C-alpha cells in the first residue's frame, strides 16, 4: 500500500482508539492495555537492537570469518531459523535453569526474540552485501583500500539501502512475535488482554482494542521504514542505469 493509504489507516486506528478510550464499554480496559503496550514496545525495541547487532555479526562471520567462526554463524542461523520462536523462548525459559542459568522473563524475551529475528536478518544482510556488484570491490582494490575500509566506506553504505525494506518486514515480525512472551508470564499487551478476558469475559471490546494497538505500532514501523528508505535512496539513482 502507498504511504498515503498507510498514513490514513494509522490515523483511523488512532482515532478509533481515542474514541474507545472515552466510551463507556471500552474505557476501563484502556489504561491497563496501554501499560501492556509499553512493555511490548520496550521488548520490541531492545529486541530490534539485539537482532540488528546479531545479524550484522553473523553475516560478516559467514562471509569473511575464519572457518570455525563461519561454522558457528551457520549453525546459529540454521538453528534459529529452523525452529519456531515459541520453542526457543520456552527452551530458554524452562530448560536453561536446569543447566544452572536462570534468566529473568524480560531478559528471556529480549534475548529469545532478538536472536530469532537476528538469524533471519543475517540472511538479509548477507544477501544485501552479496548483491553489491563486483566492480565496487575491484574499485576499492584499485584505490588501495584495505578490506575493512572497503566494507565500511563503500560496500556497507550501499548494502544498507537494499536492506531497509526487508528489515522493515522483520521489525514487524519481531513486534508481532512479542505477543509470545505472554506465554512466559510477562505482562505484555497480549497477556493483559487474556487476563482481562478471563476476568470480565468481554472478549470483543478487549481484543478489538488490542488488535488496534498492535496495528498502530506496526503501521508506525512501516511508515518510518518507508520514510527512511525514501531518504536513503535520495540522490542514489544518479549515475546508475535505470
Amino acid at each position: 500500500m502507498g504511504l498515503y493509504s498507510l498514513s490514513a489507516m494509522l490515523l483511523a486506528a488512532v482515532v478509533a482508539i481515542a474514541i474507545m478510550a472515552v466510551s463507556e464499554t471500552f474505557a476501563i480496559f484502556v489504561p491497563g492495555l496501554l501499560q501492556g503496550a509499553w512493555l511490548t514496545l520496550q521488548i520490541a525495541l531492545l529486541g530490534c537492537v539485539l537482532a540488528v547487532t546479531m545479524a550484522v555479526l553473523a553475516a560478516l562471520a559467514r562471509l569473511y570469518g575464519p572457518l570455525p567462526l563461519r561454522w558457528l554463524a551457520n549453525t546459529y542461523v540454521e538453528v534459529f531459523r529452523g525452529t519456531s520462536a515459541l520453542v526457543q523462548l520456552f527452551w530458554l525459559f524452562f530448560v536453561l535453569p536446569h543447566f544452572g542459568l536462570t534468566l529473568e522473563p524480560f531478559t528471556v524475551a529480549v534475548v529469545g526474540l532478538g536472536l530469532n529475528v537476528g538469524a533471519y536478518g543475517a540472511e538479509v544482510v548477507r544477501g544485501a552485501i552479496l548483491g553489491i556488484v563486483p566492480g565496487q570491490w575491484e574499485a576499492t582494490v584499485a584505490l588501495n583500500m584495505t578490506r575493512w575500509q572497503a566494507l565500511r566506506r563503500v560496500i556497507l553504505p550501499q548494502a544498507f539501502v537494499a536492506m531497509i525494506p526487508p528489515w522493515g518486514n522483520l521489525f514487524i515480525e519481531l513486534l508481532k512475535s512479542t505477543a509470545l512472551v505472554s506465554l512466559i508470564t510477562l505482562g505484555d499487551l497480549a497477556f493483559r488482554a487474556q487476563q482481562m478476558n478471563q476476568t470480565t469475559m468481554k472478549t470483543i471490546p478487549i481484543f478489538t482494542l488490542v488488535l488496534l494497538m498492535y496495528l498502530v505500532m506496526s503501521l508506525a514501523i512501516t511508515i518510518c521504514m518507508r520514510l527512511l528508505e525514501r531518504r536513503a535512496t535520495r540522490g542514489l539513482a544518479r549515475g546508475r542505469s535505470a
Partner: protein
Amino acid sequence: MWDWEYAISIMPALGKAALVTIQATGIGFLLALVLGLILALLRMSGPRMGWAVSALIEFIRSTPLLIQIFFLYFVFPSFGIVLDAFTAGVIALGLHYGCYCAEVYRAGLEAVPRGQWEASIALNLGTYATFKDVILPQAIPPIVPALGNYLVALFKETPLLSAIAVLELMQTAKMMGSETFRYTEPMTLVGIIFLLMSLVSAAGIRWLERRLNRRSAR
C-alpha cells in the same frame, strides 16, 4: 542432566503429537492457498474493492497471530458458533497466512504479460476460462518456491496453537514437563523435531523449484 531413558520413553507420545502438528500445518496451508487466491483475485476486481481488500490484508498481517487465534477462539462462541480449539486454530493459521499468500499470488499474476489478457479477449474467452486456462497456469509455477517458504513459516507457527490447548507438539511437551518437572528432554526433543522437519521441507522446496524450472525452461 540428560536422561536417555526418559527421552526414549516420551518419543511415542511426541510422535503422535507431531502428527497433529502436521495435520494442522496441512489443513491450515490448504486454507491459506485457497483464501490467498480469492483475496488476490478480489483485489484485482476493482479500485474500491481493491482498497478494502488491501486494508484487510494489511490489518491481518500487522497484528500478531496469537491474538487472532484468541480472537477466533473466544469471539465465535458469542455469535453462537462454538468451534473446538483445533478448528479455531487452523482457521486462524489459514487466515493469517492466506494474507501473505495473497501478496505472493499478486506478484505472480502481475508477472503475466498483458498480451496474454489481450490474446484471451481476441480469442473470445470468458473471464473464468481466461483465469483457469491462460493466466493461472502461467502465474502459479514461478511462485511455488515463495509459497513453499510460507508453508515452512506456517509450520513453525503451529506451536501457537498450544496457547488454546490444542494437543500438538508444544502443548504435549509442556504437559510432560509440568507432570514430571523435567523440561529439558521434551523441550529439546521438540526443538530437534522442528529443526529436522524444517530442514527436510526446505530441501523438498528446493527440489520442487528445480523441477519446475526445468519444465518451464523446456
